[in-house]
């Protein structure tokens, strides 16, 4: 049953993405920035998906600490790992966009910089998990770190934004420019498609994490025999 739900979501995501690619190609141009502006269809939804993922990770971490059920730990790591992939998409597309518009690969733009710090934070989460072998300790400590990381995210965003208003951008171009009205519908649909893709990946990863725990349990049983 779960399998069918996942395949259904994947199919829906694929259809939406295909339709969006067509729509994206026939939409009229954005005046200031030209073609490259279409990258926003992936750049922004990837960031929104990743940030939603980090919120889910927070809830999962707190739930694990309260209920001690490992399903929450598996959810936390699945959502965080997939979130890292989508944040990477955001960073790379943002960098390419910056190269085309501003001529530099990295311009210390407040949002991109905050995304980079978040990426480093959640990469730290995965590295911490790798360093801990005992499952309960790993889940507990990872949950604590996830809570600290999530508390940091808004502070990071605001502090970097204040920092960048002191040092103005290389060229003053707001990222959204003049956002054409008929683009919002396409953007929202693409957001849905990316959310679905994110959810499918998370579910697969979650199942893998559960399977991994079962393997560890079997391994211990076999060695005990």
């Amino acid at each position, binding site marked *: 049953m779960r399998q069918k739900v996942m395949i259904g979501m994947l199919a829906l995501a694929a259809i939406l993405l295909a339709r969006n690619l067509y729509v994206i190609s026939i939409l009229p141009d954005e005046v200031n920035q030209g073609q490259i502006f279409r990258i926003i269809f992936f750049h922004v939804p990837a960031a929104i998906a990743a940030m939603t993922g980090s919120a889910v990770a927070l809830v999962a971490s707190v739930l694990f600490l309260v209920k001690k059920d490992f399903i929450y730990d598996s959810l936390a790591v699945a959502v965080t790992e997939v979130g890292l992939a989508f944040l990477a998409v955001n960073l790379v597309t943002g960098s390419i966009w910056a190269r085309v518009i501003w001529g530099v690969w990295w311009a210390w733009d407040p949002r991109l910089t905050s995304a980079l*710090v978040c990426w480093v934070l959640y990469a730290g989460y995965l590295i911490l998990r790798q360093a801990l072998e005992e499952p309960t*300790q790993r889940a*507990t400590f990872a949950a*604590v770190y996830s*809570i600290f990381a999530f508390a*940091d995210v808004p502070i990071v965003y605001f*502090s970097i934004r*204040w*920092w960048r208003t*002191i040092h103005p951008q290389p060229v003053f171009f707001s990222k959204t420019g003049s956002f054409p009205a008929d683009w919002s519908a396409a953007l929202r649909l693409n957001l849905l498609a990316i959310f679905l893709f994110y959810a499918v990946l998370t579910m697969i990863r979650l199942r893998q994490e559960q399977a991994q725990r079962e393997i560890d349990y079997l391994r211990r049983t076999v060695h005990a025999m």
Partner: protein
Amino acid sequence: MRFLRQVMVITAKDLRAEMRTKEAINASIAFAIVILLILSFAFDPTEDTTREISGGLLWIVFTFAGTLVLNRSFARELPNDCLDGLLAAPVPGSVLFLGKALSNFVLILAIEAVALPVFGIFYNVRWTRQFWPLLLVQALGTWGFTAVGTVFSALTVNIRLREVMLPLLVYPLMIPMLLGAMLLTAQLVMGQPITGDSVVWLRLLFGFDIIFTALALVLMETVLRG
């Protein structure tokens, strides 16, 4: 207040232990001076422009040297099962956190108290012009660093590669606080007072300290039992 008295007992124990051997504090101060020396080679100390990055330089020195102190904080309890002894004590995790954090705070402030004059000498900067605001910024920034660092010192005490994991986990969390502290310190060291524009950074430091101290107090018990 029983809570405070328990905290003071732990702080006093840690500080007394440190003062007997002076291991961590000597190593950290030496390390701080070495880093300042190396940074003097990297950035010409006589240049005026170097004064502008003084805040960043100082806080790099403080965080690197402070990490040594933080690492020792719980690592010191490992031999002879002292950590188990601490955990068996009938005090809540928050008391242990506050006690250790306060002792680390005092030690790192001591390192800063040595590093600042040395910095003043190497870079020929009269950093005492805004002394009291500078002291405030140092205290706020150091407390934020210490609060987060103490929790993660407990968390990483039994992990392999502890010395690498502690900075790796703590520094990204510290980025907003370091941003504010570096900017304010640079301003104050150059003699400019904290104006309306910079007050927002002071508020950031306060907010950071409050949020992360609260989180640390709540989660320390989990980390210690986990």
